[in-house]
């Protein structure tokens, strides 16, 4: 596994038919830190994620991970640079089991050959076993062993969130983009998430970037916070600095008369 690197985003912009969803946003994420992106609905938080994972094409700006220019890499190769992600609305493979989902998580690290797969040669068997072992490590870490053979369509919302996190971890990322890891979870489940995020950061050495509305969770786990509104950057700093920033308060609470 390669070491975590610095994610540097410079002057990033994207327009959707005249709407500036993200406008001239620059920030750095240092290796090993937990970086949170906050902002009201429609501020462009998820759009930044989609730009980093190359699902959208930016209209201007640059994104570098270490010395790699992400804008030169197609979306399906991003995971090989060490960047994995989860989705706001949980994008799991519904009709497959948890185990199969997690194995797809290892896709980027498995050899692909339709011919040897069709004949299931001994090499394929060996690779399956080897990657299964890696998957089991993640299953242990996130304590989802009881769901291993369940279909996703039979799982509860909270369990799906865990499975999606596990699937992202299966690709052995050095940087993890988490799109609202605690949305729709109850207090107890949110506490679990904060423990897991700590584990992932400390045990696996993964840099975390997350979009999150739950300010308690952000205050608890984030080292630095970036606030954006209407696609523009408002403030970057420690959670307390950002929380006390006048512009941020204005964006959330409105202008005082």
């Amino acid at each position, binding site marked *: 596994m390669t070491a975590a690197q610095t994610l540097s985003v410079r002057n990033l912009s994207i327009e959707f038919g005249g709407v500036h969803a993200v406008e001239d946003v620059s920030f750095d994420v240092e290796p090993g830190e937990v970086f949170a992106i906050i902002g009201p609905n429609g501020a462009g938080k998820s759009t930044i994620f*989609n730009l980093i*994972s190359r*699902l959208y094409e930016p209209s201007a700006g640059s994104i570098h991970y270490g010395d790699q220019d992400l804008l030169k890499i*197609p*979306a*399906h*190769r*991003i*995971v*090989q640079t060490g960047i*994995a*992600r989860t*989705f706001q*609305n*949980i*994008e*799991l*493979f*519904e*009709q*497959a089991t948890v*185990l*199969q989902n997690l*194995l*797809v*998580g290892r*896709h*980027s690290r*498995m*050899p*692909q*050959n*339709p011919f040897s*797969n*069709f*004949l*299931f040669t001994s090499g*394929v*068997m060996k690779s*399956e*076993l080897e990657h*299964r*072992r890696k998957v089991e490590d993640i299953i242990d870490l996130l304590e989802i062993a009881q769901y291993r053979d369940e279909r996703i*369509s*039979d799982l509860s*919302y909270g369990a*799906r969130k865990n499975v999606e996190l596990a*699937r992202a971890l299966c*690709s052995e990322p050095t940087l993890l983009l988490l799109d609202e890891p605690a949305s729709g979870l109850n207090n107890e489940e949110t506490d679990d998430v904060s423990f897991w995020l700590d584990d992932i950061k400390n045990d696996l050495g993964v840099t975390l970037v997350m979009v999150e509305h739950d300010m308690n969770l952000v205050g608890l786990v984030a080292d630095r916070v970036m606030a954006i509104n209407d696609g523009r950057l408002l403030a970057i700093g420690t959670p307390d600095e950002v929380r006390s920033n006048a512009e941020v308060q204005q964006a959330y609470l409105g202008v005082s008369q």
Partner: protein
Amino acid sequence: MQFLFKTRYEDDIRFLAKTGEKIRVGMVIAFLLAAPLFLPSYYLGELGMLLVYAIAGVGLMILTGHTGQVSFGHAAFLGIGAYCHSILMSHGVPFSVSVVLTMSLSGLIGMALGRSASRMHGFYLAIATLAFLILVETALGEWGSLTGGYSGFSVPGLKIFSVPLTQVWQQYYVDLIFTLFVVWGASNLFRSPTGRSFVAVRDSELSARSLGVNVEWVKIQSFGVSAAITGLAGALLAHQLSYLSPETFDVLHSLKLLLMIVVGGLGSILGAIFGAIFISLLPVALSFLKDVLPPSIGEQAGLEPLLFGLIIVLFIVFEPAGIYGRWMKIRFFFETLPYYRKSSFVRQKSYLKTERMR
């Protein structure tokens, strides 16, 4: 009720983990192997036909059931397979070489179609594959110097290593060997990375892409594998039909293949086989129906396509999981006796699914 203790990772990879499964599959294979001993040659021929359709069904199932790409054009690959194989055989190419070449050609054409269809979804994909079918059907008819045109093409007799196999039972065994090979291979595909990436593309292109799956390439691969297998079915079908004409490979034939996998149960190899059994029994039911119905209805020309359409609709409404789904439910009923309840298979409403990223 049966508890399955897994002690090794191989237990999840191996086929036929349960004793019951071993017995069932063993019995089916034993029946198929012994069939020529007790079946009259007419029924043996029908069984051979069933096997050929099972191969074609597996081919379409990989594309539509597992990768989620609907194809109204799969009869074209049957046609390409049948004509390519027959033409090669008539030029003296040995059977084994001809089969490999046929599968390769069909697979390459499938990949080309997949290349152009890889960015289309749903409705547009259906139209594109339909257009492809009409193109192939017309080409087979018009390219008279090669295919014999609309007057048809006589298929050379089956000959392997210059041993002529003219008996029904000999052809049947050839079909059986290929069927077992294809079913085994297709099942292998879905316990390895290639098949998993197919399923991933079906369920969520978005997250498949972010996990490192090259979605366009997966679709091209899936079209290729599917077309190669369907082409093989076409080659074997040619020997069954012994006379080819372009009209054989029309839209109705495509619809028949689709009917087969929808009725059998989308997304499972076993479903394709159930579908093939169903489609083989359908003509029997149809001739029975013609006897029962008053002649004014029974003699109508469009009865068969009407029935196809009706059956697809009824299955989609009442049993979307097809015969395979029903089979699983019946098994579950007996395994958990007496705990089965009406609501055992009622699914929860699915969670937030946005169209935002499409």
